[in-house]
């Protein structure tokens, strides 16, 4: 099974930019019912464990929060590789640096270009890691935060976001040839605040098989994945 965990991938943008590879056989919006805020770590942890983790993850220490495999659906797979997913294998150093530059931008010490160049560098690193591992394990999860990181400073700039979505669509395109079960999922969507972007509840999911899901909650994928793992491994 392959999971593309795409931070802040927004259903309206996927449709607007006509991302054909991201829109697989079945796709739609996810529900974030029960979450008071669209917090990245909370949502990915909830996706992994199948339950709302909001109360268990304090904001102050959220980026260091780490789940054990036994707490997640990973335990249903004989082997797995999880690249950079928050709450599990998050690359602390890379993302700390991104957040430092993001803060610097708001303090007028860093330019958008400096920040974005780091984001793209980290993205390329994840892409290399992901494609190196493709096909080696029964479950591969690749996390890409490009839409979130670029979107926070530029979601209102359509041309820039079109490039981001095109890149993510390309990754999905390269994975698409695989016979395996493919889930593409985001933690939340995004909405424009002038040129900037704020988290929204317009999350996205996409499957290469038809399961007939209807506005699935982000926590409900736990059972779906468990069923797939049990039937295939």
């Amino acid at each position, binding site marked *: 099974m392959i999971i593309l965990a795409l931070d802040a991938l927004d259903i309206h943008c996927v449709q607007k930019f006509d991302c054909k590879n991201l829109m697989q056989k079945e796709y739609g919006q996810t529900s974030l019912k029960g979450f008071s805020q*669209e917090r990245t770590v909370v949502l990915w942890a909830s996706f992994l464990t199948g339950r709302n983790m909001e109360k268990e993850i304090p904001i102050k220490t959220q980026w260091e929060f780490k789940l054990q495999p036994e707490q997640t659906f990973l335990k249903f797979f004989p082997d797995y590789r999880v690249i950079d997913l928050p709450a599990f294998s998050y690359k602390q150093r890379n993302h700390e640096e991104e957040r430092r530059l993001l803060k610097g931008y708001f303090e007028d010490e860093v330019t958008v270009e400096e920040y974005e160049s780091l984001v793209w560098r980290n993205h390329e690193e994840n892409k290399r890691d992901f494609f190196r591992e493709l096909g080696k394990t029964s479950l591969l999860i690749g996390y890409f935060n490009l839409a979130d990181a670029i979107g926070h400073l530029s979601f209102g700039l359509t041309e820039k976001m079109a490039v981001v979505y095109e890149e993510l669509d390309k990754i999905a395109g390269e994975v698409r040839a695989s016979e395996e079960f493919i889930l593409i999922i985001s933690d939340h969507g995004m909405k424009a605040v002038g040129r900037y972007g704020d988290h929204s509840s317009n999350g996205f999911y996409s499957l290469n098989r038809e399961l007939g899901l209807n506005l699935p909650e982000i926590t409900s994928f736990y059972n779906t994945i468990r069923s797939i793992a049990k039937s295939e491994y």
Partner: protein
Amino acid sequence: MNARLQELEKRSIAIIREAKAQFKNLAVLWSTGKDSTVVLWLCKKAFFGKIPFPVVHIDTGYKFPEMYRFRDEIAREWGLDLIIARNEEALKSGMSPEKGRLECCTQLKTEALKRLLKERKFDALILAIRRDEHGIRAKERYFSPRDEDFRWNYKDQPAELWDIYVKPSEDFSHMRVHPLLHWTEIDVWEYVKQENLPVNPLYFARNGKRYRSLGCMPCTVPIPSTASTIDEIIQEIKTSKIPERAGRAQDKEKAYMMQKLRSLGYM
């Protein structure tokens, strides 16, 4: 009189008179900027020389000295019933843009106005916003209801068909009335010229810079310009590709985003 300006003026005056007829306790907001000064002038014209309701100036304490001088001169000359609203409590506690621009605006502008509305029980406020200022303002109506937290539901606004402005029957805290909504920045300047209206000297270029939009001193940035007369300003706007409120609006959005990212734990 220029036929276009005559049409704009006619419509604005009709809206102001309609507001006066529909609301018991009306007031007009005046920042001392060019747009709100034009609105004051239209109010004067609508009621034959004397504005029959209070003029509210929200004083953040951080305005340019030229704005205070201009305010006091015009208030005296035009015989305005001027109310100055200040959030003294926030000012005493040291509220300033350094504490966060969004928080500062909320406390010194929004909160000051909320308190005044509560105290004076105004049921409608005339404001000088224009549709061409910002994308979100393009969605505004001439009569725009607000709830007690000043929230505006742009997806649920009264229809304004055939220039009929109706007060919604549902519960609302106060109505915002926008008689300048259909004007553009150039219309405002052409009207200022035609009516020979006084405007703040900060709008005219000095040492290669001028203010295109006036706000609080720490949060308003001048633009490079050599336009030192109204004609030159009109010419400059006609060729400019920079939005009027670019500096000010972006500051607010930037402040909002910074606060949101903080609340999400990014910073």
